[in-house]
Every structure is written in C-alpha cells, then in structure tokens.
C-alpha cells in the first residue's frame, strides 16, 4: 500500500510550498508529488523614499511602510506567490522601461526562491524519508530544473519513467497544449503526444503506471476555464466555462488507461473524473489564499484503493 499526496500550481506561494513539503507527514503520505507551475507571476517593488519609508503597491493599494511593516508585507507578498524586490526610485523607472531587465530579475528571484525551497524541503525530507517528486509546468522557466535536480531529496520527474514504490511507475511532463499566454513549456498537441508516447514506450506495465501530466484531458470537466475574448477578458463575467484541456492527454489516457492520472494547470477545474479505467484527479489551486489544495491517493496492488481531495 502506498499513499501519495498530490498538489499542483502553487505559483510561487512560499506558504503553499511549505505546506506541500509538510503535507507528507501531516497526511501520512509515503510520496509527495507537485504537478507543476511553481514559479510566481509578479515582482512587487518596495521603493524607499528619502524619509526611509517604503512605498509599495500591492493588490491595487498603495502603502507607505516602515521596516516592521515592510517585513510583514513581504511575507504577505511571498505567501501570495509574488516576489518582493527592493529598488530605488531610479531603479524602478529603469525597470519600467526595460522588459529584458525585468525578465532577468524574474529569473534571479525565481532561482533564489528555488534555492530557498530546496533548503526548506531538505531539512524535513531528510528526516522523514518521504519521497518528493516535482515536475515543472508550462509557467516555469527552464532555469529552475537544475536547482531542484541538485537536491538529494527531490526528484525532477520531467520526461522520465520513475519507480514510485517498487510496484508502480510514473511518467511525467509539465508541458501543456498551447495557451493564450505563450508560456515557457507549451507545444502543439502533436508534440505533446510525442513527448508522452516516448515515456509510455518505456513503461513496463501500464496497469501499474501513474500519469503525472500537467495539462488535463480535453473535455474531462477538469479542464473548464472561463472563456476569454480576444483581449483576454473573461466573457459573461466569467460564467461561461469552456474546455481548454489537451487532446493529446485525452488520447493517451484513452489509449493506455493507467489506473491514475494526476493533472493540474486549470485552477478552476478541481475535481475527479473516471475516464475508462483511469481515475483522473485535478486538485485545483487556491495559492492566492495561501491554501494548498491537494489529493491523497492510496494505491494498492490492484490500483487506486481510495482518494480524497483536501483543502489545507
């Protein structure tokens, strides 16, 4: 019997990463798996003025903070998945005018975050003996892979066929079908299918395989996201939901019918769907509220024995 805790799409939330690492012990899991999209989406500048106060604009509110207030706000920002940065007024202006500089700064902050996260994980996983797999998602820049791969206690699962527990294997990819945002790891459906097929060819027994695929299968209900207009504005106040999942993922699941498929990518798509013999789980994501949505799955020799979605 093996217990897996699966979460996904923490998007830079410091608190959600900590919860993810601690979830193994909290839920008595043997294995913890993070599905992808670990990096944050925004840099939040703290601009120091001549009086020693820090000006910051967070959640559309401008604030002037002293050192103590700044520390508290930095924690808030990190927990929400954004990166606080200290800049002067001139540096802020410089960044505002130079997209390349902002991109470089993003990479720098993301790598710092990754190093911090690895350290936090190693301190705990080394004591607990819980296996940890991560698989960067379409929003994650490639530079982070090597930081996590350097860890003795974290396995970067992208493109690999990995042994989970001596009985089950797992194939993983964080690549997704095309999105409107042209993110780091997205490709055509054909390419995505090829990536998965390459791994599938090396699986010894599909009845003992877990698919850890970031993109959910098309039309599964785990892939319903607000319909957007050409300006990326949700139509009908966000009430019109349409399937945006991957046809390639749908195809390989129908073809191989593994007992379990772990997916993410669509934060609103929290749910469970049985496709033929495959139990597909998208735990969803509420990283902005510092809540780690997840799933506990218990596997026995026959397949998925039980599962439950969690909100921690």
């Amino acid at each position, binding site marked *: 019997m093996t217990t897996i805790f699966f979460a996904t799409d923490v998007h830079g939330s410091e608190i959600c990463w900590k919860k993810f690492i601690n979830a193994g012990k909290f839920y008595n899991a043997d294995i913890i798996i993070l599905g992808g999209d670990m990096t944050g989406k925004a840099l939040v500048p703290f601009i120091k003025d001549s009086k020693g106060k820090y000006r910051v604009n967070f959640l559309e509110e401008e604030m002037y903070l002293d050192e103590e207030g700044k520390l508290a706000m930095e924690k808030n920002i990190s927990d929400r998945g954004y990166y606080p940065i200290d800049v002067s007024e001139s540096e802020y202006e410089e960044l505002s005018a130079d997209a390349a500089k902002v991109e470089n700064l993003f990479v720098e902050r993301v790598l710092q975050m990754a190093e911090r996260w690895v350290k936090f994980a190693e301190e705990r996983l080394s004591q607990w003996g819980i296996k940890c797999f991560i698989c960067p998602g379409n929003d994650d820049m490639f530079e982070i892979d090597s930081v996590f791969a350097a860890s003795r206690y974290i396995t970067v699962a992208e493109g690999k066929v990995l042994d989970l527990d001596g009985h089950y294997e797992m194939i993983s990819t964080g690549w997704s079908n095309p999105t409107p945002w042209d993110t780091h790891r997205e490709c055509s459906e054909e390419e995505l299918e090829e990536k998965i097929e390459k791994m599938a060819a090396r699986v010894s027994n599909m009845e003992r395989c877990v698919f850890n695929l970031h993109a959910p299968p098309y*039309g599964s209900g785990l892939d319903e996201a607000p319909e957007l207009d050409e300006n990326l504005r*949700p*139509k*009908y106040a966000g009430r019109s*939901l349409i399937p945006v999942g991957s046809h390639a993922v749908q195809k390989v699941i129908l073809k191989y019918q593994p007992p379990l498929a772990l997916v993410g990518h669509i*934060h609103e798509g929290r749910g469970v769907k049985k496709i033929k013999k495959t139990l597909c789980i998208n735990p969803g994501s509420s990283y902005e509220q*510092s809540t780690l949505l997840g799933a506990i799955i218990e596997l026995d020799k026959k397949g998925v024995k039980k599962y439950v979605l969690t*909100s921690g």
Partner: protein
Amino acid sequence: MAQPGMFVRKASGLVRSWSVFDGFVYSFFSVNLVTLGFYIFAFAPYIPEGNLLTAIVISTIFIIFEVFVYALMVAVMPRAGGDYVWQSRILGGGIGFVLSVTGWGWILWHWVPLYGNMLAFNVFTPILGMLGGWTNSSGLVNAASWFVTTNGLFFSSLVVIILAFIYISLGMSWYARIQKFCFYLGMAGIVTMIIMMLANSRADFISSFNHYATAFFASGEGDIYQQILANAAEAGYVAAPLSKIAIIPSLALIPMVVFFNLWPNWGATLYGEVRGASDFKRNFISMFFGLVVTGILAVIVLLLFSRVFGWDFYNAANFTFYEGTSPFGVFPYPALLVSFLTDSPVLQMWLLISMSAWFFGWCGTVFLSSTRVIFAAAFDRILPDWMAYVTSKFRAPVNALLVMAVGGVIVSAGMHYTEHLETYALNATLVIAVTYLGTTIAAIILPYKDPELYKASPIARLKLFGLPLITVTGVIFLVFLLFLFYKWMTDAVYGVNEPASYLYLAALYLISIIIYVASKWYRKRQGIDLQEIHKSIPVE
C-alpha cells in the same frame, strides 16, 4: 492585465477584468422582477395594511449589506466554491455541508413547482389564451385554462425540469449566451410594457380588460373589473392606498418581498480572480446595481400599475385569484393585463413572448447551483462518487441532475396534489436564508478566526468604525436575517410556522445531517477522515 506598481511576466491565467455589465446582467436576472416579483407581489393583499413600495425600498437597503458580505467574501476566497467552501473552512465541514447542500441543493426541489407556477402563469396561460381568442380555438382557450389547474401546474413543473436539464447539459457557455439574449429580449418587453401603460388611461384599461376577459377568457358577462373589486370587498379586503408610506405595517411585507430580492448574490460564487480593490468593487457594483436597478424598476412598474389598473384593482385581482372568487379565471399576470391595452395581436404576442424571456433566461438557475454543490460535496467524498458522474458524450452531470429532477418531481407532486402550494412558498426562501446566515456568521468572524487568510486578502484594510468592514456589514445583515426568521416563525401569514411546514423543513435538514454522519462513519471505515480534509496544514 498589468497591475500598477507591479511587474507581471507572461504567465497563464493572467486575464483582464471581466465586464461589470455582464455581472450585472446575472444579478439583475436573479432578482427577477417579472417572475419572482410579480409572483410574490400577488400575495401582498394578505398583509393589507402594508405598502409594497415601502417594503421594497426598506428591504433593498438592507440587502445591500448582503451584497457587501458576499462581495467581501469573494474578495477573500474567490473561485473557491461559495457558501459551501467558505462555511466549511470557517465554521467546519459538517456545518458547511448541511447548510449548503440543503440551501443550494434540496430546497431547489421546492423551487421547481414554484417555477412551474410561474411558467404556467406568465407564459403558457397568457400566450395560449390570447392565441386561442384570436384564432377562436376552443382547444387553445381550454389549454390556457388547463394550465392553472393542478394537472396543468404539475405539467409545467415537469417542463421546468426538462428545461433545466437542457440548459445544464448545454453547458455554461451556452447558458450564458441564452441568458444574455433573454436579457435584451426581456428588457425590450418591459420597455414595451411601460410605454403601453404610459400611453393609456385607466378608462382605456377598464374597457379593454372587460372586453378581453369576456371574449378571450370566458370570465362571464358585464363589468368584470367591478365584479373583482366587489368580490374582494365582500371578503373584507381593501387595499391600503399606495400613497400611505406606512413604515411599521410594511415591515410585515418584507419577509414576503425577500422571496424576490434576496438573490443579487446568486452569481457571487462564479466570479473569478480578485486581484485587488478594483475587482472587489467590480463584484460589489454588479450585484449592487442588479439589486438597486431592479428595486427602482419595481417601484416604477408598481406606480404604473396603480395609475393604469388602479391599485385597488391590481390587489383585488390577485386577492380574488388566490381566494378562488375571481371571475377572471387565470392569474392576473401584469403583462397579460397590459396586453389588453392594444387590439393588435402582433403587439400582444410581442409583449407576451418578449416578457417570457424573463422566465427562460433565468429558469436554468434552478439546478445550476444544486449540481455545483453536489459536485463539490462528492469530490469531498461526502456524497457518493456517482453523483458527480458526467456523461462523456454530452458532458452532462446526469446523476446530479437526476437527483434534483427526481426530488423536484416528488416535491412538485406533493405540493400540487396534497397541499395548497403557495402555503409553503416562503419555506423556499427561508432555507436559503439559513444558508446565507451561515455565510454571514462566517464573514463576521473571519478576521478573528482566520486572520492570516483575512490579512492576505485585498479587503484587509477596509474598516468601518475601526472594525473590519466585513464584520460590521455582516452584523447589519445578520440583524436583518434574524428579523426575517422571527417574522416567519411568529406570524402565520407566511405559512411557515405550521407543524407540517416545520416537519418538512426538518426533513430537509435531516436528510443532509444523516448523509453527513453516515458518510463520515463510512469514510472513517475506509480510512478517510472527513474532518481532516479542511484542516490547515502546519507551515513550519
């Protein structure tokens, strides 16, 4: 897309803000003047001292605080799943399940026959009656009358279930489109209705009403208008003048009026990401205007009824219909009465069909929320997995719909054939108000019970009297809800405080409690602790 003062990189999910107007449309349709409003206004004669306008204005003011509570909760926990998730997280999984599945699920069984009544009263009877009159078809005229019989009303309830099935099977993207089309069509209808009322006098109405009531609706001979007034007077009913504000007596009308206007927050759980103060304002404004614009429209329309129909007549027609003493054999649906003001069958049909869009654009909501909460509870392993089954071909949540449909048929049959349906109409409001009570209490205590969550939200700095805005507005709305519960439970006029009504309500809650307790026990045996699933994971 970019937020001021922040550098945002290209990442999935970064979208622009949605249109406030689209949010308003949903809210405006949820506080549905033509279906819910005209239906419940017809019961106002049972509180004869009250003034409907005063009750609408006062209730609208208090319901603004409900809008605050829900807009603020969405800002703290957007996309989370609404009342079920908010209550589960703040008050506990058991309370969250029982209040939400009863208030967003089972009680919607009760709304099916109510929707059925509205479909019969607002759509089938008027359209068939007028068509029958113009074509001289006794079949259509008989069909129009049949729809207000017990069998006709039950049939209409079944049609509601089929419509809800179709809407939900089509999916939200289609339903949103249909709703927007119906919004424009329905608005064109109400504008037509207002223009026709402005263009005609009371004398015009009296003569045309008498003509059509006699010629098309077989209401007998003579002055039907006067007969209705006389029958009401004979039963001791005299409407209080509309010019008399009557604040204290009108308070008693509020527990009735909320049947119509307690729902501007109906779409709150659907609103997306809240990234800052402006998104909170968007949520608030769309619900606020949905409520207030409808309130203003209700006042305008009622004043026009008073001018054209006569306030005495409008209330007497409703009173005698429910007392069974009206010579006009069908529900005095205001759009039907207004259609009598023209002799053009095309204009009459245009008015009745366009006004029916108010029903068709909104009736899908009867199972929409229910299927959502059933899914959420099934994913949490409280309800069985099969309830969340979705067909691969049509992507329809067929089992959740069946649960709602079977319950809806049973309750419809029970209500239509065993008791007078309207007696328990306000139970349907009360149970949802109890769910709102749960969310309101969760909102009040949120800043103290889960300070981390609250402080990380865009509303953390919103204060009133030095206290969190969510707490202050929550307390005001809580007082309003407690007033409603007090009135419903102490005054027989609402039909709630009867033994059979209490048993019915208790049965609904008991179903939820039994499911939760049994599920908790069963899952425990499987090694799943339902209490664990909402517990916060330690951070350090």
